[in-house]
């Protein structure tokens, strides 16, 4: 454990000492030789002493990084055999049920990879599982950052970089999903084509531009391949570099605890402990993915058959991260009663059809994605909080944000679940139509209910924390006093725990602030309304007076008899 100082300065003497250093051992000589030419010491000195706090929830970002590296390694292997050509060929590989079937070269080489290349199927499955894990890890990492408030000043821009990384990940996943050119991915592309064409006026042009003509054409697979193996991974790599650079610049956030302040970071330095842990963790992630790839079949593309625009197969779904787009399309009705939602807009050149059922789905997509990007500024605007934050929030201590985040999660979850509405119906013996109707209800009611329930749960947990601070934990021991009274023993929490339970900021509702002309505008009014939903219901942290009062109720021990630390912790953190 060490605290990190903000700056380190070396005197001229120290520098010359380094220059005159004579290594004694063989290894030392080699190391010194290299170091004098590469200058590794500076880097190790700078980065090796970076302190990272240890908590398992901080490791999802690492998982994302590692699974990305694994997709790159396994993907490089796949490129040696995969040929993204849409030229027609006749399959003559090892898989009997497709022998003699006409298909594109892309599909034929995907099959060759799966059945004729030694270890090819394993690498394909590793690549696919790693891709699923990459995006899952990013999503959970973002949830962790969101619910602990790690996106607040000064980390807003890094949050934006992270959001862009998530989008790039979705792009990488979808372009990869489409490459094998079987019926499943072809249907996915057809849906994207439909969504593009639904965009008024320019939609058809965009679609024709992407597909090089009418869908499916013979251009799209090579184009997606360029995007998938070159452009998108390059973007991801650059963004990862920026992301990590900013993490080093900002220093890592930490959970509240004794000795942890806004001006320090408590944890292990990278070298050697953390580097060993992180390096080892790479192999753990690799191992987990290899286990999945070796035991669980993923994307059995030989079942789907070569792409043909006519058939659509039951159970056609995108990979999980694209699921919510698909789910939205399923949720949105094409008719309300007998009235079709699609209509033709009369224009001088004969009329443009407006695909309302598809266009409406763009609203929640835009709301969620755009909301993700701008949330740090929205929250700062609502709370009026312009301070820097390096200590994380416990989610229960920010009921407003936690409830809002959960509401959005449930909203996403409903859209996501809608993508599997057919499988929900078959596997739980339900009517497909009923499943859809209930999901439509949940689409609107789910987030509202979740907001209310989550907020209540947060407040209840805060009250429980207060209870523990003031009265201690129930010891599970019933005492009988000499006069016959029965009482349950309570044990006071340790100073360490006490600090965590009481040392948090608990903002109160801020009144409307008039502008320069002394008026409260509409914008400010809406800010105050939102501010009120955030902070109106509030459980205040235990104050010093309350704590001393509570101690005096104990039979044994008053404030004076207790170690100074207990009360001191509260005083020092009182706002």
């Amino acid at each position, binding site marked *: *454990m060490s605290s990190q100082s903000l700056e380190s300065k070396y005197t001229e003497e120290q520098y010359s000492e380094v220059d005159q250093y004579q290594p004694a051992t063989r290894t030392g000589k080699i190391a010194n030789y290299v170091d004098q030419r590469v200058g590794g010491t500076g880097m190790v000195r700078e980065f090796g002493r970076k302190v990272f706090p*240890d908590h398992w929830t901080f490791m999802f970002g690492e998982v994302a990084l590692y699974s990305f590296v694994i997709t790159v390694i396994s993907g490089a292997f796949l490129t040696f055999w995969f040929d993204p050509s849409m030229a027609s060929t006749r399959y003559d590989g090892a898989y009997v049920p497709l022998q003699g079937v006409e298909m594109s070269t892309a599909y034929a080489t995907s099959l060759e990879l799966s059945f004729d290349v030694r270890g090819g199927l394993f690498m394909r499955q590793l690549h696919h599982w790693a891709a699923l894990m990459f995006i899952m*890890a990013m999503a959970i990492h973002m949830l962790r950052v969101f619910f602990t408030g790690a996106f607040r000043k000064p980390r807003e821009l890094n949050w934006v970089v992270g959001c862009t990384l998530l989008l790039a990940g979705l792009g990488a996943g979808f372009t990869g999903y489409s490459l094998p050119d079987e019926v499943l991915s072809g249907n996915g592309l057809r849906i994207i084509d439909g969504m593009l064409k639904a965009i008024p006026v320019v939609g058809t042009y965009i679609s024709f531009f992407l597909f090089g003509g009418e869908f499916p054409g013979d251009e799209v697979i090579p184009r997606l391949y360029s995007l998938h193996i070159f452009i998108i991974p390059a973007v991801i790599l650059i963004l990862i570099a920026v992301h990590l650079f900013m993490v080093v610049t900002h220093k890592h956030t930490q959970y509240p605890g004794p000795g942890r302040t806004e001006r320090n970071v408590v944890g292990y330095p990278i070298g050697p402990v953390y580097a060993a*842990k992180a390096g080892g963790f790479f192999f753990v*992630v690799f191992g987990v993915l290899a286990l*999945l790839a070796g035991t669980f079949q993923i994307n*059995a593309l030989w079942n789907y058959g070569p792409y043909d625009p006519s058939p659509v*197969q039951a159970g056609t779904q995108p990979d999980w991260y694209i*699921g919510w787009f698909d789910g939205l399309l399923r949720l949105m009705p094409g008719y309300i009663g007998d009235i079709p939602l699609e209509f033709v807009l009369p224009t001088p050149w004969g009329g443009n059809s407006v695909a309302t059922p598809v266009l409406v789905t763009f609203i929640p997509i835009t709301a969620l994605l755009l909301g993700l990007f701008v949330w740090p500024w929205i929250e700062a605007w609502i709370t009026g909080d312009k301070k820097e934050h390096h200590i994380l929030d416990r989610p229960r201590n920010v009921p407003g944000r936690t409830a809002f985040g959960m509401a959005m999660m449930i909203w996403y979850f409903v859209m996501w679940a809608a993508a599997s509405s057919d499988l929900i119906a*078959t596997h739980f013996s339900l009517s497909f139509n009923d499943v859809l109707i209930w999901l439509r209800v949940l689409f609107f009611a789910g987030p509202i209910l979740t907001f209310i329930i989550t907020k209540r749960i947060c407040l209840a947990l805060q009250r429980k924390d207060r209870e523990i601070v003031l009265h201690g934990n129930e010891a599970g021991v019933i005492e009988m006093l000499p006069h016959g009274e029965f009482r349950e023993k309570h044990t006071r929490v340790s100073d360490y725990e006490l600090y965590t339970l009481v040392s948090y900021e608990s903002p109160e509702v801020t009144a409307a602030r008039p502008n320069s002309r002394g008026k409260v505008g509409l914008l400010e009014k809406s800010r105050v309304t939102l501010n009120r939903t955030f902070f109106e219901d509030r459980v205040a942290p235990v104050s010093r007076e309350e704590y001393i009062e509570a101690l005096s109720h104990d039979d044994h021990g008053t404030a004076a008899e207790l170690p100074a630390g207990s009360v001191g912790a509260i005083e020092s953190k009182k706002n």
Partner: protein
Amino acid sequence: MKALSQKRRHPLAAVALLLLGLLLTGGLYAAATSINEAQASNAADVYSASDVEEGERLFVANCATCHGINAEGSDAGPSLIGSGAAAVDFQVGTGRMPMQMSGPQAQKKPAQFNDEQTMQLSAYVASLGSGPAVPAAEYLDVEEGNIARGGELFRINCAMCHNAAAAGGALTEGKYAPGLDGVESVHIYEAMVTGPQNMPEFTDANIPPEDKRDIIAFLKNNESQSAPGGFALGSLGPVSEGLLIWTLGLALLIGSMVWLTSRSS
């Protein structure tokens, strides 16, 4: 020729022409549909009179409540006249009939009649009117079938409901297309030819018997081949894969994360 050109403006010429046209289309249609019934058999050829008689007895005792005492149908069940032996063999042979309960569709269950009784019921229904017959053994011989061609036909005609790996799928209002693993070849054939429940009929004009055999060969191969990549997760595609990464994958990760950070501070 001259007579024709003279008479062509006769007031009745249009009527004659119309009649001729109707006759022609009607005749063509009759010829075309009779191809579909090439498989239909006369009950007398295959089944003995005692089979029919015994079948009628079974029918009256077990089926007449819904299908009517003369199989003429009622509010509870359709008429079976002209359904043919294949329909009975499928419905009774897979246990769907007699129906356990009314619902969106009849469910598969252990067969309620033995092979002989099923045959007798088929004989009775076949005697009521011609319909698709139980297929000949040559069309069920999967050794003769072309798996690749069967796969192509399956993907074009069947996979939209039954899933590309024949794992089944959802239809509207609680109806569903069942998974096809473990279904006997003869029942697959009969289902195609009779279109039970919500399934469309695939007549011999639509998919010839040899092609049906190819489809059966593909399904039998699909059933017997193991999943090349490990556990197939129900062959349900990306949903079960996503579920696995969010459950087992995530659990393994969190487990190792907690382990790695367990000795901190």
